[in-house]
């Protein structure tokens, strides 16, 4: 039984008793009925206009056991007993769920918390239900729900594992033909240049770069899937920040030149060493600088790296400002969504996988930092990445990142 159905089970589904007497019946007769059936938890009392009340076994015998109890109640109609009760019996509509009925029953005063209760059905009839039958059913439903939740969790884990395996297999199957495409492209490029056939060069370069683009896409998808399944690990190393900045700047310098951009880098030479995941930090900077160079022409791109102290911790702040095409509000909203590029013509004109910024954002989160930006159409875009100089528990080389 699924937990959705369990939650909908009502008190109508419980086993019930329908023993009842007229309101004129004397107490001695009621006592006789209880003695005939030792499992009977209570008896309903009917008057001329239908349901009149309920006699609980416990309450009734307790009353009879009092001084002169038998004298007072055995010869008079049962209404004498009903009228002496401090409160009317609990009557619940048939559509009440087991869960709600249990809550209401358990909220009764301690002296009659074990009393049966009455279920009023839509057709005007009444049933009497044992309190213990209600609690037993509720316990069963809770355990069913728990079993169901365990099964759902196991199914989700299996599905997630199947997805990871599928992606790993897909990656392998795509890499093998890509090895041939990129490799033959590079061999033919060498051949044609050696033979002085310059005319073929641009098209051969297109084959290679399309292959590399596809490879980048596969790597990006695998990274996102690893992050999603909590398998992406952060590997902490201590490294020189100026050396990293130099390396990254050197890598993107040709991209900046291609669009005729002025590229300036500002940082203090004594900014020192940082403890973080060097590869991920490089990937983040290359993504943002790569975007800045793509979306800016005949303009400028500045990379500023500063060290800031905030709340007792040191932060490395990387600010990448360009004078490029910029973004409007709706483009900015979707900036970090995988495969989102401001519009489909962007990827045709500017290239890119549409995964870079999404990964950059995720990596910044993993490294304990933040990524923010501001942008204006036609004015340019500025990204600010803030990362801790040293993560809190940096004794351990591997930060555990499972998000549970």
């Amino acid at each position, binding site marked *: 039984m699924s937990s959705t159905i369990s939650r909908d089970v009502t008190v109508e589904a419980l086993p019930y008793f329908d023993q009842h007497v007229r309101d004129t019946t004397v107490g001695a007769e009621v006592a006789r009925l209880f003695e005939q059936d030792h499992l009977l938890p209570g008896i309903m009392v009917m008057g001329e206009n239908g349901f009149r009340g309920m006699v609980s076994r416990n309450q009734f015998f307790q009353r009879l056991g009092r001084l002169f109890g038998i004298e007072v109640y055995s010869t008079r109609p049962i209404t004498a007993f009903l009228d002496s009760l401090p409160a009317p019996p609990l009557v619940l509509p048939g559509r009440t769920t087991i869960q709600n009925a249990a809550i209401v029953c358990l909220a009764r005063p301690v002296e009659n918390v074990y009393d049966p209760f009455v279920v009023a059905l839509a057709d005007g009839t009444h049933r009497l239900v044992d309190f213990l039958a209600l609690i037993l059913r509720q316990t069963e439903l809770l355990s069913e729900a728990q079993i169901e939740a365990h099964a759902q969790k196991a199914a989700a884990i299996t599905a997630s594992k199947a997805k990871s395996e599928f992606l*790993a297999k897909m*990656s*392998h199957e795509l*890499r*093998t*033909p*890509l*090895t*041939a*495409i*990129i*490799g*033959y492209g*590079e*061999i033919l490029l*060498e051949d044609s240049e050696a033979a002085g056939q310059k005319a073929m060069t641009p098209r051969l370069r297109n084959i290679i770069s399309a*292959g590399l683009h596809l*490879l980048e896409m596969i790597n990006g998808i*695998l990274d996102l899937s690893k992050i999603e399944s909590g398998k992406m*690990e952060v590997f902490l190393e201590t490294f020189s920040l100026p050396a990293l900045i130099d390396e990254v700047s050197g890598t993107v310098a040709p991209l900046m030149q291609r669009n005729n951009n002025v590229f300036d880098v500002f940082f203090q030479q004594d900014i020192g060493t940082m403890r973080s995941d060097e590869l991920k930090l490089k990937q983040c900077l290359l993504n943002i600088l790569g975007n800045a160079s793509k979306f800016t022409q005949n303009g400028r791109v500045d990379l500023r790296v500063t060290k800031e102290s905030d709340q007792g911790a040191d932060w490395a702040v990387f600010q990448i400002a360009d004078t490029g095409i910029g973004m409007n509000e709706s483009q900015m909203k979707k900036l970090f969504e995988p495969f989102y590029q401001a519009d489909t013509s962007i990827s045709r004109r500017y290239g890119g996988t549409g995964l870079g910024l999404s990964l950059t954002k995720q990596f910044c989160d993993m490294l304990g930092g933040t990524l923010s930006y501001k942008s204006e159409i036609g004015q340019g875009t500025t990204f600010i990445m803030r990362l801790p100089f040293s993560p809190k528990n940096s004794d351990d080389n591997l930060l555990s990142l499972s998000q549970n």
Partner: protein
Amino acid sequence: MKKILFVEDDDMSRDVISTRLTRSGFDVVVVEDGLKALDIVSAQVFDLIIMDMSMPGLSGWEAAKKLKTSPATAGIPILALSAHTMSTDRKRALDSGCSDFDSKPVNLPRLLGKIEALLGNS
């Protein structure tokens, strides 16, 4: 000239990578699977073995284990070259006795860097 044994079951990958290695100045011998690799190392001397891991017949992992257990071949460094690129794939290759791991498609400068490092150490 350093002599490299290149073990790869995929025809095109074998052609592409062996051509590039030859052009980079190595004497390259190619075979298609692990068993043929074991056969040829008994007859010729190699400075380095570059080997695919998932191959039919005798896989690269099994071949690497066997090469490392025989005194005659244990000293030859093995570079695993695989299109399986998860961190577990890398670990599995190193656990089988490979000295280093690189992924396909090949980034030639990166691959040559790893080859130089292994030849320098041998």
